[in-house]
């Protein structure tokens, strides 16, 4: 049987020590399979963002084990983690976070430059195709700061896609968007899982959004209470 697990968390714990010891995450274990569309919900302070940063390999200060694509990321160097993020994980943040110094198209291409597998021309073609899929190909040559919030978010999604990652992680992707744009984003994500067989992990406090996803993981006070 083919192993379809792309992400596995094994009893992940994290505490903040400043000023007093607070356990933010307690014994978090779950798996995500290829093509899954999952959301993490929970109240403010339930540790959902913290979990996402750990799963994204950016935060390495925790106990327990994390496997991405069946490889443990314990003991990986900062450089190797960066390479994993670059190749296997796509990111979409709440605050769009495009680089204002570049055009939308260049923003999409940047992670591709780092991966350095395709030529610049191929990358540009791919990036343009993604923008087209998202219906914003007309904005390709615009500078990032000239775009509206919804447009920025779509550019960010295209950027998350450029290196053909296994999993796309989103932190409150609709937090700053109106319901119309939120719907657009939801549908894009749905399409990504269905057509491109991507795994999606969305942190959100938007219950409507979460209810539409295939799987809901609910966190409360650092523990998984559902999912």
């Amino acid at each position: 049987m083919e192993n379809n697990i792309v992400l596995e968390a094994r009893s992940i714990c994290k505490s903040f020590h400043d000023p007093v010891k607070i356990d933010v995450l307690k014994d978090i274990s779950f798996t995500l399979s290829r093509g899954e569309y999952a959301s993490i919900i929970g109240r403010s302070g339930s540790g959902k963002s913290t979990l996402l940063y750990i799963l994204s390999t950016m935060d390495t200060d925790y106990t327990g084990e994390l496997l991405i694509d069946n490889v443990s990321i314990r003991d990986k160097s900062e450089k190797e983690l960066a390479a994993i993020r670059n190749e296997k994980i796509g990111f979409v943040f709440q605050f769009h976070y495009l680089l204002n110094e570049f055009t939308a198209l260049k923003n999409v291409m940047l992670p591709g430059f780092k991966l350095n597998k395709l030529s610049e021309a191929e990358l540009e073609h791919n990036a343009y195709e993604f923008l087209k899929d998202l219906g914003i190909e007309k904005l390709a040559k615009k500078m990032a700061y000239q775009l509206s919030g919804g447009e920025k978010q779509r550019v960010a999604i295209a950027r998350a896609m450029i290196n053909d990652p296994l999993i796309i992680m989103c932190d409150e992707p609709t937090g700053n968007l109106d319901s119309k744009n939120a719907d657009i984003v939801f549908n894009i994500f749905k399409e990504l899982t269905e057509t491109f067989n991507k795994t999606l992990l969305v942190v959100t406090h938007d219950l409507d959004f979460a209810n539409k996803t295939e799987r809901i993981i609910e966190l409360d006070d650092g523990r998984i209470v559902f999912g």
Partner: protein
Amino acid sequence: MKVKHITEIAIALMLARWKQTLVAAIGVTFSIAFFISLLGFMEGLNELLDGMVLNRTPHVRLYNDILPSKLQPIDLSKEYKDHHNFISSVKPINTRKEIYNAQQIINQLKKDKRVFGVAPKITAQVFYNLGNIDLNGIINGVDTEQEEKLFSFSDYIIDGNYKELKIIPNSIILGKGAADIMMAKIGDIITVTSTEGEQFSLKVIGFFQSGIAEIDKVQSYASLSTTQKILGENSNYISDIQIKLKDIVQAPALAIEYGNFFKIDAEDIQTANAQFETGSSVRSIISYAVGITLLIVSGFGIYNILNMLIYEKMDTIAILKATGFAGADVKKIFITISMSIGIAGALAGLLFGFLLSLVIDAIPFHTTSLPTVTTYPINYGMQYYSIAAIFALATTYLAGWLPARKASKVDPVIIIRGK
């Protein structure tokens, strides 16, 4: 990660803050331009001042010194061989000032590969006759061609052609001071009396100015044969042999070697003019210190501006890291920014330094001591340009390295969470 893309990101970041970037680059340009022109000017001045004396001084001078005999009669006595002796009021022996076999010595020296050139010289004590008044004077008998080759003789001839000294018999180039007192013009005939009491008529063909008034009042130049005639000596008479070496540093060693080899007194330039080198090196050290301070200050400018840029671009750094750029990549980006500022600033600085040198070189500067100098002296030595360039690149690299390291350590989680 291709260099091209690192550069692309670096350029985009610089353009986003192009005014500060420009200010930093101008800082480098400014410091390099001043470093080059300051050191070039200082070295030009050093060369000028040293040249006033050193260029006119032979590196090694061979002559017969007036000294008491080293071997006194008592030293020959067997009886007092093991004793010490003290002799008061020892008088010099009556040595001739003539150098024996001068021509052979000159020929021998010319074959020596370490020697740049050899010029014979005779000095004759005379009186310039001016009606009733006699003025003290010294006539230097010189070989004009050698004198020109070794000591830039023509630089100090302010009127007339020095080559005529050899062509016109009984001709003289008068010191400017002496000529002014005698009110002599070119073409005039003056009378001199030798120490032996003989009178000679000499034709004035030019004037000489060394810049040192006391010398110009006394000294004059004539050809070797004219001087020999005044002294009443034959044509083999030479009292000084002036040697110019290829490497001035060898002078003390060679002076000892020649002194022993030719059994003659030899004096080197370092002994004769020790103070000049000290002055030059102290001036050089001061100007290097000032120049390097300028470069370091510009390095601090870059450091500040990069630090600011990093604080401003925290989001950008965080997002680059989140999307898979390693700390090393971020570091490369900021080092690239710093080095671009350094290289662009350095290139412009080299150019402006050269232009500034040209400007200083064009400023009129007249001094009686140096008739050939009409503008401020500048040394265009490549070494200042290369030192400035290397030092500028080193400081900008260091100035970029610290902020770049800081940028590479930015934790994306903190930045992204902090929003």
